[in-house]
């Protein structure tokens, strides 16, 4: 079940950004890998505690988010939905490739010739009434629920969140009531990229990552988003849980090599029978 938390965590910032700005960030998974890399660097090689390095990751990637917004989002924000989607896919695909190449090369050269990013907790298991639970996975699940909760509250109840939803529902309508789209996208990407990188750090509590897994992560995130419905955060949670279950069952009954195929099968079924996603709205 906790695998579901991992998948939810992979997907939710992608979902928010896609729904509010129509930017499909292919570099999403690569930003997670970078977050994991920075967290690994700070804990394993510089000896910082886990909470401190998570804070460090949050800060660095908030800045990264500002930069990402200025370079990849702002110039195309006023274009039509389709143009934004296509331009952003091409541009961020290039960014993803560039980032993973640089990361792989310089990490191997300066830090460790065999790059692998992972974090560990002091106590990997706890026992509750005779049942042994994995601390990492509990922590990840708790983080996913809290982070998604935070995003949900921000979008639902703060002015900038409401403005973001307005832009997603009717871009020109939002301009007419006086929303400044640049300010909104800046907020979304500062928060979003920061959370994406933290998610990467939490992810490698369970499974290590190497520099070249970013695009695979983006693909998994997209599947979760499609299952749950674009822009629906409860949907991201549900889609994540579902994918986690599917993977667990696949591994148990047929073998782990089959899970990508099962994922694509589920993606296909959802696209055919419920294209708006399980919890997606109309449209």
């Amino acid at each position, binding site marked *: 079940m906790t695998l579901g938390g991992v998948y939810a965590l992979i997907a939710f910032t992608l979902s928010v950004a896609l729904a509010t700005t129509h930017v499909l960030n292919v570099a999403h998974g690569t930003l997670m890998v970078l977050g994991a890399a920075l967290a690994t660097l700070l804990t394993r090689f510089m000896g910082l505690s886990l909470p401190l390095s998570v804070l460090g990751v949050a800060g660095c990637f908030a800045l990264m988010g500002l930069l990402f917004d200025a370079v990849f989002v702002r110039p195309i924000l006023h274009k039509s939905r389709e143009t934004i989607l296509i331009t952003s896919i091409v541009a961020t695909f290039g960014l993803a490739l560039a980032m993973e190449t640089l990361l792989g090369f310089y990490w191997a050269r300066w830090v460790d010739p065999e790059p692998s990013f992972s974090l560990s907790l002091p106590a990997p298991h706890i026992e509750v009434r005779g049942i042994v639970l994995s601390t990492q996975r509990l922590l990840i699940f708790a983080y996913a629920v809290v982070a998604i909760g935070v995003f949900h509250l921000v979008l639902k109840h703060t002015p900038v969140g409401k403005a973001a939803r307005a832009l997603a529902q009717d871009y020109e*309508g939002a301009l007419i009531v*006086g929303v*400044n789209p640049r300010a909104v996208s800046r907020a979304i990407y500062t928060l979003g990229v920061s959370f994406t990188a933290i998610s990467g750090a939490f992810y490698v509590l369970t499974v290590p990552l190497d520099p070249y897994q970013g695009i695979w992560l983006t693909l998994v995130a997209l599947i979760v988003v499609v299952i749950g419905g674009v822009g629906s955060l409860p949907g991201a949670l549900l889609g994540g849980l579902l994918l986690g279950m599917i993977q667990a069952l696949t591994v148990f009954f047929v073998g782990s090599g089959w899970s990508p195929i099962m994922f694509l099968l589920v993606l296909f079924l959802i696209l055919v029978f419920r294209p708006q996603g399980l919890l997606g709205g109309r449209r």
Partner: protein
Amino acid sequence: MLAVEGLSVFYGDLPALREVSFEVRRGEVVALIGPNGAGKTTTLKVILGLLTPRSGEVSFERKKLGREPSYQRVREGIALVPEGRRIFPDMTVEENLELGAYAVGNHREQVRERLERVYALFPRLYERRRQLAGTFSGGEQQMLAIGRALMSAPKLLMLDEPSLGLAPRVIDALYDHLQALHREGLTILLVEQFVYGALEVADRGYVLERGTIVREGTGSDLLHDDYIQRTYLAL
């Protein structure tokens, strides 16, 4: 209050407006009428800063607006009820209205007060304040769009074909509301193809055809103008 001078707008190479000039004085209702494709919507978009003109100037309260962004113009007191209403379908009525006050600050008390005024004007919106706006009929959506525009407490309210797609009875109610707002001192720029109704409530009017202003005058002068009667009122 509003002065538009020598406005020319192009979509690519195609001209939409050519040297358009007109003005709206404080407290007036001014009608801008003309056939489909004349450039009425384009004019309103330029005034709100959604489109940049190739040449010409929009001034509001004696200040040239230049390339000021829309959110700044909303803050200074211009509001638009757009063509097609453009309400937010997956939000409740109340969320839509609150967003109308988005640009002008979000002091809870003030927003409350304005909500009450809009609800007093349109009791139907109050009854349905928790409903999703996307489930509304055309007339209700139009009320919501007007209510949303009023939430910024504008000095100038611009409406783009508010009667489009409404039943005659609903149009009457809508125009009663507009006249009530006018009596309270609101300045209104009314774009319509419903020429008779618009000229009846308007102090002055302009006729726009193929991107240029071809007639202007007081509401009643235009109503009795031969050309207008032949072309727009089919008398």
